């Protein structure tokens, strides 16, 4: 199939950037979205142009590197799917596809579709860990965890930190990411000693990074490729309120 792509091109962080239109021909429906961009890039390189820069790594939907806003939807309209796992069979011949980077003040564009997500790392550094003596793994049954808690903690822990939640949020909020990281530790026994200081530090770091405030629109969880539950934001709010009331 033949497609028209409208892609955000930006030489660097100081460049203003603009949308550029490209034609891509003979796209196979079996290609992934990123393979389709690879085809475009190979042609651009042969023609002596600068290829479109985009983040990617594992290309199996588990690393959290890739991500672009496709026709106004983070990771495209396919639910529970990262950009690398989105396939061209979901598009049809003659489609015009708009491709943009995550848009957030806290995620400055480095080049084209690549954004700097270090803000997420700093939120994790603020408290997204447990302080325990490192060493060999303890016997698994020494600390019992109820099955329901283990499942909910695991659901939250599947967050790959891609940033789609921020990209989709009308407020540019990072609440779903931060909430996933807070919830996955606050549901487990190992997370209890630092539970309140963690919630407080991570929420304050999230605000300091310049993300917007949550108004519970639910756009984040709807585009999340890992389906992080919206309940995690309630967990974050509960932990934060408890910490703030002390």
């Amino acid at each position: 199939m033949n497609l028209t792509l409208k892609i955000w091109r930006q030489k660097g962080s100081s460049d203003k950037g603009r949308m550029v239109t490209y034609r891509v021909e003979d796209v196979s429906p079996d290609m992934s979205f990123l393979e389709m961009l690879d085809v475009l890039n190979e042609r651009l390189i042969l023609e002596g142009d600068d290829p479109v820069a985009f983040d990617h790594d594992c290309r199996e939907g588990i690393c959290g590197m890739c991500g672009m806003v496709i026709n106004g939807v983070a990771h495209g309209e396919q639910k529970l799917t990262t950009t690398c796992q989105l396939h061209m069979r979901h598009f049809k011949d003659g489609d015009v596809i708009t491709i943009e980077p995550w848009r957030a003040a806290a995620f400055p564009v480095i080049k084209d579709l690549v954004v700097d997500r270090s803000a997420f790392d700093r939120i994790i550094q603020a408290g997204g860990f447990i302080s325990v003596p490192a060493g060999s793994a303890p016997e698994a049954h020494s600390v019992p965890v109820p099955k329901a808690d283990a499942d909910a903690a695991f659901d939250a822990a599947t967050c790959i930190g891609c940033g789609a939640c921020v990209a989709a949020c009308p407020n540019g909020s990072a609440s779903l990411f931060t909430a996933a990281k807070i919830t996955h530790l606050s549901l487990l026994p190992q997370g209890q000693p630092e539970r309140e200081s963690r919630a407080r530090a991570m929420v304050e770091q999230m605000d300091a990074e310049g993300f917007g405030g949550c108004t519970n629109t639910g756009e984040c969880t709807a585009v999340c490729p890992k389906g992080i539950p919206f309940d995690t934001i309630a967990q974050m709010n509960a932990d934060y309120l408890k910490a703030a009331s002390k």
Partner: protein
Amino acid sequence: MAVTGAVLVLFLIGHMLGNLKVFLGADSFNHYADWLRTVGSPALPNRTLLTITEIVLVVCVALHMWAAVSLARRAAKARPVKYAAKRKSQANGYATHTMRYGGVIIVLFVIWHLLDMTFGTVNPKGGDATPYDRMIAGFQPDRWWVALFYLVAMVMVGLHLRHGLWSAFQSLGLTRRPRVRSTLQTIAVAVSAVLVLGFVAAPVCILIGVVK
């Protein structure tokens, strides 16, 4: 946002129950209005309850609007470069998208409503008539557009509460488990629906002549 909104919802419940007294006749309605002014008398001066309510409401509305404006400003700052493609909502929440402009419509409605029913400035009977007469005169068929404005405003209030109530539960951290979440979702829908129906009942019944 959540706490001030909760206070406003409690007021709406009381206000709606008071309104429904219009169906019990002029005496019941006027007596209730009079009671609101004299409750606690003679131990307390007249209008004690009303004055406290008015102060709490003004403070809550002001803080609620301040919170909304600061959230909107933070949102604008958090995304300085807008998307070129029209963003399609992936979450199915129509009510969510009405919150900001809906809030403005509700404020405009409250101003009209106070001029109409409290001060009587835009009411055909004026401020000196009994509360019952003011209410009946306000929604006569020749003033159908007033009743229509009230209907539209109440639907806006309903949508505002539909998202607002559930959002308040979420902001206060009450919706941590799926079962509790769905119960609170149902409560949000039910309270919004009951309030809208309770509020539109009086204007509609007066408009079609059931209440005279």
